[in-house]
């Protein structure tokens, strides 16, 4: 790999121990994946934030990097943590877990990382422009950035994203290069796409069809007439979860779709396929549901406003988590939405979500509008699941 003088300095330890370790990681990954050089990134999003995933060893590594003068050189934010940083007690989090989770955030803060913990940085100002190189880790955000925004990122892991933050660069391979962003299969959608959960179901159906003989194919999707930010974030989370997809093109919707040619190899997705996915994710009935959650990925302010409208003057009968980013919650506070929602008995679980929070064994069945949330509820926490349109999920909490 060709390194600049500054990159070589970092590798030789002239800019501190943390920068050296970070450059060692990037240089090795670059050589494994055949990168010729590093490219500067404009933002970084780091995963591996929940203490439940990091453990004491992960925390020790972060502390060592902070002690070794590790400082973020570009705008860097975090993925969701294991708890609401302010309101963890209401979520039933133990004091020990809260103490350790705060140590993790302190280590990141010492490295000048902005400690907003969210899977949707693009909803609160970390919104890269078309063609910008970034190093993001959260799989749904990677898919959104590559596909919807036309920015360029690989699917980073926790340490490789941190390494990009501490050096300001990433090796130029994978989705940073135009030739690796080309579609390999056309996907014709012939289903009714109206609600967030329709897009989540579609993400699962397409995601599960994209791995052919161990190869992941980048899809060129046709037949979608319109899609909102909320629907696209739901779709990205789902296709990334079920298909490991880091990029797709959607005719008439995503910016690079007009610049690539639809592949000849084509598959069709019918309403029957979507109905089947819906059946698979609906093994719970209303009487069993004891946990309701909206905000996978984190809610936009528009979605929170809608929840407030639906909950105004009513009382929820089930544990109901509203998961979002802290900056979005602050807008909700300002607009009075938070008060309406909290008066109903629903809880904000800011900075976290039902995927990363340690809730195994606490509930039997989850109602949500998110196909990704269903996957983790089932695979990680062994809950039954119910997937419904957004408004009907709120209604479920009131039943």
């Amino acid at each position: 790999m060709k390194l600049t003088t500054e990159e070589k300095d970092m590798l030789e330890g002239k800019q501190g121990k943390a920068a050296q370790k970070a450059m060692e990681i990037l240089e090795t990954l670059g050589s494994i994946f055949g990168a010729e050089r590093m490219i500067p990134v404009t933002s970084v999003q780091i995963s591996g934030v929940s203490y439940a995933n990091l453990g004491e060893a992960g925390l020790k590594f972060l502390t060592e990097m902070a002690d070794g003068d590790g400082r973020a050189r570009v705008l860097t934010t975090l993925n969701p943590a294991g708890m609401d940083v302010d309101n963890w007690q209401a979520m039933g989090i133990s004091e020990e877990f809260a103490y350790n989770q705060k140590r993790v955030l302190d280590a990141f803060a010492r490295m000048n990382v902005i400690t907003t913990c969210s899977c949707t940085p693009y909803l609160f100002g970390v919104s890269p422009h078309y063609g910008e190189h970034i190093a993001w880790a959260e799989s749904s955000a990677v898919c959104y950035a590559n596909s919807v925004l036309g920015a360029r990122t690989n699917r980073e892991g926790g340490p490789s994203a941190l390494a990009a933050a501490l050096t300001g660069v990433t090796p130029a391979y994978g989705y940073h290069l135009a030739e690796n962003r080309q579609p390999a299969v056309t996907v014709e959608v012939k289903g009714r796409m109206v609600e967030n959960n329709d897009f989540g179901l579609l993400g699962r159906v397409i995601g599960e069809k994209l791995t052919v003989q161990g190869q992941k194919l980048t899809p060129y999707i046709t037949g979608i007439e319109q899609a909102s930010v909320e629907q696209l974030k739901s779709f990205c989370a789902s296709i990334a979860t079920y298909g490991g997809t880091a990029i797709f093109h959607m005719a008439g919707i995503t910016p690079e779709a007009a610049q690539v040619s639809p592949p000849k190899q084509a598959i069709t997705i019918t309403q029957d396929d979507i109905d089947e996915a819906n059946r698979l994710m609906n093994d719970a009935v209303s009487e069993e549901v004891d946990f309701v959650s909206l905000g996978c990925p984190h809610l936009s302010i528009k979605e929170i406003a809608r929840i407030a409208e639906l909950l105004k003057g009513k009382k929820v009968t089930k544990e109901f988590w509203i998961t979002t980013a802290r900056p979005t919650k602050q807008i909700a506070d300002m607009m009075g939405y938070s008060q309406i929602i909290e008066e109903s008995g629903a809880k904000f679980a800011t900075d976290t979500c039902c995927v990363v929070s340690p809730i195994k064994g606490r509930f039997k069945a989850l109602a949500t509008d998110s196909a990704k949330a269903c996957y983790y509820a089932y695979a990680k926490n062994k809950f039954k699941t119910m997937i419904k349109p957004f408004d009907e999920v709120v209604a479920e909490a009131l039943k």
Partner: protein
Amino acid sequence: MKFQGRKIYRGRAEGEALVTSMRISFYGGVDPESGVIVEKGHELEGQSVSGKVLTFPTGKGSTVGSYTLYRLKMGGMAPLAIINAECETITAVGCIISEIPCVDKIPIEQLKTGMRVVVDGEQATVKVVD
């Protein structure tokens, strides 16, 4: 027997090889305290990677697995070195942050459990000494 591979992480180690033809997931597949492989149905299920020259084709699973290697190292239970056919991100990053010598692009099918091997990360070589 001596093989020339590719350097993943520097350092030199000599020890007994523990070889599998199956991929390894460090997160969930290896107990981070004892180093015992716990993945159901794995060829090495029940055996410890601790103090061995762990030899496997490539890694798999969650990227959090890099931290599992780090935890093993901190607890003194890490493998002495790692040999891969084709290294990937999780194992590479795990070796770098834990400072475990690692070499890949080695014909691992020629190595057998119990062989005494010397791994030289800097020279990217693997030598069988008996």
